[in-house]
């Protein structure tokens, strides 16, 4: 049975490779999609809000105030995330140009457990946060990365990387939070990676023609000399990175708009009242993590401010679930996976984290 699965997966990867070859020969443009329409709609709403001056005084004041808050939060999230997306896109561009498909085929294991283990630790090779990890994963899939490796990498890399290790250590020191964050992230990402071993890539990943991912047409810019080729390959990597960046930015913008909207119009103060409840505190912190969409490189410092009020399990859930899934990253997943898969990628980390965090609160008393 296992052999059959592996064969099927290999076959799927080959099919994807074939599609990649066909797309890499032409410049790809982001196709007009539902996401673009949503942006248009939200822009329209914003314009309406701006013209809300015609509304009665109280409502206008309320909207002005909210709009100001909304804009500030949106810019906060977006500006914080953009450099990481840029970094991820650059890594993606260089992977596209410099990493050969054979390297991945030869060095990345395909058996379930080693594959998931590899994915869980790849963050130390590609230290990216939840914004940067999406384009990198997408690019690696195009290079033939086995599905479980990519899923595990996608979920674990925002935490299991040296930058976040340092920031969590600075915030909490060496103790249950630091250990718990890494252990739980590894455990959950690894388990979900194993689960995705049973999936067929074509059922999970969006087809290449939908994602619009590829390389620019290199025929006209590729020189014939070796030295010139190296320079031009670098240029090509940057151009590809820019393409990736623009492609993923729309998801980031929509995600940031949604996150800002949730933070502006939904009272989060209520959630803070559940700090000492073993179950509700976990739910509250997971909702906060999802809504606030804070980058994993800095979320430990925010979590520290909750540490004295909220249960240990809930603080851990904030630090584990948030980097795996939040509003903006969930939107960005749509650029890689089918919608149903995105739903699974939200549900599984959510339920695993919820289970473990509540169990910690009720049984371990960290």
């Amino acid at each position, binding site marked *: 049975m296992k052999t059959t699965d592996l064969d099927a997966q290999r076959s799927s990867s080959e099919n994807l490779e074939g599609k990649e070859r066909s797309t890499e020969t032409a410049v790809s443009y982001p196709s007009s999609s539902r996401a673009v329409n949503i942006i248009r709609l939200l822009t329209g709403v914003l314009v309406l809000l701006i013209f809300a001056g015609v509304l009665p005084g109280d409502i206008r004041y309320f909207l002005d105030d909210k709009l100001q808050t909304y804009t500030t939060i949106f810019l906060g999230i977006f500006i914080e995330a953009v450099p990481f997306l840029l970094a991820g896109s650059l890594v993606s561009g260089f992977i596209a140009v410099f990493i050969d498909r054979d390297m991945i085929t030869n060095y990345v294991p395909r058996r379930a457990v080693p594959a998931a283990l590899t994915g869980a630790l790849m963050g130390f090779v590609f230290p990216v946060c939840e914004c940067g990890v999406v384009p990198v994963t997408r690019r690696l899939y195009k290079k033939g990365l086995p599905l479980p490796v990519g899923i595990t990498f996608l979920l674990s890399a925002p935490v299991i990387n040296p930058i976040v290790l340092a920031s969590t250590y600075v915030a909490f020191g060496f103790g249950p939070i630091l250990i718990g964050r890494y252990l739980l992230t590894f455990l959950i990402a690894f388990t979900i990676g194993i689960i995705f071993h049973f999936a067929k890539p074509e059922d999970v990943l969006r087809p290449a023609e939908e994602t619009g991912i590829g390389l620019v047409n290199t025929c006209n810019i590729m020189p014939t000399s070796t030295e010139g080729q190296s320079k031009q390959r670098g240029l090509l990597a940057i151009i590809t990175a820019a393409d990736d960046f623009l492609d993923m930015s729309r998801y980031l913008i929509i995600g940031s708009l949604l996150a800002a909207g949730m933070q502006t119009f939904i009272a989060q103060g209520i959630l803070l009242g559940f700090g000492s*409840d073993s179950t509700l*505190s976990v739910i509250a912190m997971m909702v906060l993590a999802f809504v606030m969409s804070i980058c994993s490189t800095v979320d430990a410092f925010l979590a520290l401010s909750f540490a004295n009020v909220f249960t240990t399990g809930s603080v851990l859930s904030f630090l584990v679930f948030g980097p795996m899934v939040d509003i903006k990253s969930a939107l960005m997943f749509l650029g890689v996976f089918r919608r149903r898969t995105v739903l699974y990628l939200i549900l599984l980390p959510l339920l695993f984290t919820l*289970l473990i965090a*509540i169990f910690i609160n009720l049984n371990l008393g960290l």
Partner: protein
Amino acid sequence: MKISRFDTIIWSIVSLLVGLILLVILLGNQLGLEVLQLRPGLDAATVSTKIHIQVTFADDLASIPNPAITFSPPVSGTTSIDGKTLTFQPVTPLQPNTDYQVILSEGISAENGRRLKEDITWQFHTSQPQILFIKPDENDPEQIYIADPSGTIVPKQLSQSPSSIKAFAVSPDGSRIAYSATTSESGQAGTSDIWLMNSDGSDAYLLLLPCVDAICSNPEWLPDGHRLIYERRQIPVPGAAAGNPRLYWLDLLTGETKPVFADSQRLGLFPVVSPDGKWLSFVSPQDMGIQLYNFDDGTSILVPNRMGTAVNWRPDSQTIAMADIVTQEQVWGINLSLFDVNTETSVNISEGMQVDDSGPVWSPDGQQIAFGHKIARSAMGRQIWLMNADGSHQIPLTDDTDIHHINFAWSPDGQFIIYQRYNLEELYAQPSVWIIDIQSGETMEIATPAMQPTWLP
């Protein structure tokens, strides 16, 4: 929608996870409520008889069983919870020199659902109360001294104040002493500060509140042991006379001080806080009476009084005893009266007009009152008398008209009274502190010169 094998696997796992989450929640909290600190600690040997038992838990408390805490020998009191802390406040002080066993009952639960899974038992031993007094000295600063009630040990100096101590108050748990002292050489002449020291003599003085332009005096503790109320007389310019007294808060945790009343023109002196901490009584010169200020609702009760001396609260905080001037057909006397704060009614408990009764002090169990008694308008010294709480059965404890007795203080066990006395026959009599056994009437000198005696429980 096509359902693949993978979808089936996912939804099976989702169902399993939801089931497990519900199971974990249904099984509830498997952890016990953790006790972080016991006060007094395990096998503590010299515990104050006025200690409030405190247990600090790891989590915020939600509910406690009844009774949550029991003692052997039995102690009656009230139990309260505040955040992570459970406090038991005995109605009367504990017995001195006694072994106590405390049992904290299982079932105390925290807001996060954790419960104390089994009884916690520990022991402590109460100390023998000591006597504190101020020893006046013409050459050196006046200091607080400590003495043994048995009189077998020579009194020793407890404070190390660089300037003279004028008044002091022992904290509710007996661990610290707040005192007012005149400013040292570096300060402005005529002012006084509030200081703090440990009652065991360690850290013998700590400047709590520097009053560079005021006389800060008569500190009075709140039962929480974190706040003081004191009298403050502002000195507008150096060398000028002090202004009228006003009452101020002093928070020991933050160091913040501010007026008790928003109305800056409201005067007050001789502050006394009720044992339960709900009332503040003080002499209000503007109102010609005693004001009883309720901390909970901010209301006040005015009790007319022309005497202008501090009142004494019954241990149950329901009644005050006070002295007042009474007149009838150009004849005056000083009578004692009791004022009930619930019914707001007053009852005279002195025996007729021809007496000069003053300085009433409730016994620790609230059943008796010690007071000073003499015949009105006579030159005799004031004697120590006892009466029941309703004014009945008034009997003398001392009978020496040449000696003037004041400043009475009951021992925590109610068996002794310490007091200050003067010999009226001596031209330059020095104050001295004595102790009297209530049952036998036997008296004993503790120290001379000495004044303002009080118990260190």
